[in-house]
């Protein structure tokens, strides 16, 4: 209980730091010094102290979205087992709730983008719904296969029972699911090869273009929410890759954070060595993630 609260607090404090790590990694690869590691915190502070500009076109949807996005991510943290420990609101079937709360945020993300009446934001919204629908299969099927391996029905059940001995028994299954999760993780967090967070052309963006008209505290909320989403989906991947259970709660949680740092570095590496895929190729990548999840299931049941 205290450990779970502690994990949530840590997520709230450290999530923006991971973006600093990614940027530093990319800077090192490019031979630059790069932004300070704490740049995102400065950005959030700066945005929080700014005024806001609203379009003439918007309705209540656009104003509700930033608030709902952050609130939704905070709720998901209550369901998230971190460091192999039981989450606050754990129970059979919570994995579907996690996926659908993320979908609730996405729904508002998309209609808030359409609310501005901008063709660019409409374009981003259209791509978002296409990619996320495909990513959903890989994600849920992967989680359910993990549930099948561990004989449990909840996220906390899955992640407390994953261990290296289970890796020895079901290595292929776990590896395939980890690959699927990594693809979903990159797609859902709008990273290369699916989306480029640093692009400067609205026509090519997905996530960034959908928040083009947000400003001030609204934008701060949205940036913070996307940092939390990175933390949440990253934790699900790290919990699978590094299932370290030492018996000391704090040490396990510390390992999970370390894992997230490693993940941030590897995202930085992927972004440095890969180009973005053509938009028409992205669905193929996501379908292949679903196929990985499905093959994992077949391996398990063979």
């Amino acid at each position, binding site marked *: 209980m205290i450990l779970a609260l502690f994990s949530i607090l840590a997520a709230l404090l450290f999530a923006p730091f991971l973006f600093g790590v990614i940027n530093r990694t990319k800077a090192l690869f490019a031979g630059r010094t790069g932004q300070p590691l704490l740049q995102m915190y400065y950005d959030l502070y700066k945005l929080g102290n700014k005024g806001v500009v609203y379009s003439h076109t918007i309705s209540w949807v656009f104003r509700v979205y930033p608030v709902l996005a952050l609130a939704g991510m905070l709720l998901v943290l209550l369901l998230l087992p971190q460091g192999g420990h039981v989450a606050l609101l754990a129970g059979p079937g919570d994995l579907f*709730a996690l996926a659908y709360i993320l979908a609730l945020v996405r*729904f508002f993300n998309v209609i808030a983008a359409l609310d501005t009446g901008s063709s660019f934001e409409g374009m981003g919204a259209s791509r978002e719904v296409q990619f996320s*629908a495909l990513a959903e299969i890989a994600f849920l099927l992967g989680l359910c296969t993990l549930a099948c391996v561990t004989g449990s029905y909840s996220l906390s059940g899955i992640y407390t029972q994953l261990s290296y001995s289970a890796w020895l028994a079901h290595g292929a299954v776990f590896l395939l699911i980890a690959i699927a999760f990594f693809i979903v993780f990159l797609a859902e967090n709008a990273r290369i090869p699916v989306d480029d967070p640093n692009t400067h052309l609205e026509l090519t963006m997905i996530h960034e273009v959908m928040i083009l008209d947000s400003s*001030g505290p609204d934008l701060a909320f949205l940036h913070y929410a996307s940092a939390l989403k990175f933390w949440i989906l990253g934790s699900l991947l790290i919990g699978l890759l590094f299932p370290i259970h030492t018996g000391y709660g704090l040490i396990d949680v510390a390992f999970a954070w370390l894992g997230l740092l490693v993940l941030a570095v590897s995202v930085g590496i992927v972004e440095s060595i890969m180009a973005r895929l053509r938009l028409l190729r992205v669905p193929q990548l996501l379908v292949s993630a679903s196929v990985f999840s499905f093959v994992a299931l077949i391996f398990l049941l063979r």
Partner: protein
Amino acid sequence: MTLFLAGLAVIVCAGTLSLLTQSFHRLSMIAGGLGVSVGSAIWVIPACQSLFQNKTLAVQWAWGIPQGSLILEIDPLSAFFLLPIAILSALAALYAMGYLRGHKNAVGAHWFFYSLLAGGMALVVTARNGLLFLIAWELMSVASYFLVTFEDEEPGVIEAGRTYLIATHIGTAFLFVLFVLLGQESGSLDFAHFTLPHASPWWAGTLFLLALIGFGTKAGLVPLHVWLPEAHPAAPSHVSALMSGVMIKTGIYGILRILPYIGTPPAWWGMLLIGLGLLSGLFGILSALAQTDIKRALAYSSVENIGIIALGLGIFLIGQAAGAPLVALLGLAGALLHVLNHACFKGLLFLGAGSVLHGTGTKNMERLGGLMKTMPWTGTLFTLGALAISALPPFNGFLSEWLIYLGALHGQDLNTASLIIPLFLGIAGLALIGGLALACFTKLVGIVFLGEPRDPKVHAHETHILMRLPMLLLAAGCLAIGLAAPWVQALLQPVLADSLGLAPDVVSAQLQPATAWLAYLPWLALGLFSLMAVLTALRWVLLRKRTIAQAGTWDCGYTRPTARMQYSGSAFSQPILLYVQRILQKGNLRIPQGFLPTAASWNEEAADPVQRFLVRPVYECLVWSTAKLRWIQHGRLQWYVLYIALTLVVLLIWKFR
């Protein structure tokens, strides 16, 4: 039971009165509308009595028709279907009073058939005699046919009505055979006396397929759905709400009612239903995405939701076949709850689409936009309905899909790969359907209600309070069922116990631990709302001394952006439909030709592949071959009498041979 009959009497009297006073528009309207709403609201009481006190109410009369007696009965299963029929009939009738105000046609006939439809549906779910069931079934189908063709001055309505009438009768033909076969052995058409004619699995399978085709046509399972996207857009919106919300569910009811009489299900029934469910779900939602007509999109989304219900039923059957009561319970609970939920949100959405049509004069979403400002009530309520149908927490759709997911996930207990794979494919399919439903409903909300108006010729106005109130109640219902998650199980318990033949306490002992997590759901919703309140307050504090400026939407440097530059609905769904374009859409390309290029154009429209490649060729074949027999029909009465006499003689010879 007296209350049920009283409600039926009130409805039929109100409908008849409205028909008789048809020349006095106002009187006819009030008599019909109020009478039908009050009459169907009365049904809520016996339905709740049966559901909450787990009672079976029944009446029985002898009647002159051979084979059985006139039996009406409300057991928990009937009550569970009667409840949405009662609520939605009442609310849609209220809505119709606003919708038909100032309608140029006389409304008496409308109310008469509306009352017959409501009464017919109620009789279908309470009848316990095969013949009575079929009579009620026909009453319901024919009454709804007249309602579909109510606005017959609009183009295409007559054809849509005809498609519906033919399809529904083809379905009924299969039901005739089903009931005759079921009644054959026992010599009685009373449900209670039904016995299996032969205990062989082939017979049971045949009966199951007959039921699936007969009831599946009404429910709109692919590929039997062809009438659905034709009839729903043609009907007045409150009738679409009633047909889509509850009438097509009588097909689901029929399957559930008949299942116990045709024996224990083998696993392939479940797999077939899961397959049909996934097919209907994917096909329905992709077709919905391809539409530009709001009501047609909603009609296809009904096909999708029937698919989800069929998926739940498939999980139920697999659970029963494998002897895993928990899987069966969760699947059936999800399917049943989705029936109730779909009545709530699809009713709401169709009423919302009706308000859009009423307020703007068009249901083509490419001409709409920005209605949230001119129709704030309709827009907000429609958005809530869209959230609910996309199965997003804390609304009710999430609850039923969650139960179905959990049922499939519990498939891992079965330890048989050949059963786990279909169940887990169900999970994967439902995940994809959910993602596509999100795409479809963000499109509907975003294109119709948000952004800028696309067509300056469309002038929108908010609708009458009588049209908003039923929508408000339905939206409240969607949220209330979602928030009541921990208690909904109690509502389902008697139905589940009856259908599985278990004791109610066994059911709750099985379900309680498996669905314990639902207790958190109201707290999650409360947490969501309070976090949103806190964050809104935080934003207010942060912005207190700052400027809140208004400006145009960021236009990337264009000097004269217009509303026509917005993303259109077709553009929004195009990337998803790219892969199924050849199947779902029909395009018309005209390329420039010659040395001085002529005009070029490209248009595409959604076209149902089942209609195009299956139904139409068969229909044309039939028309061609029956045209050869037209000489029999010449309009001379004596000859017709001779035909009848000859037929009787042949029948007599056959009987005494």
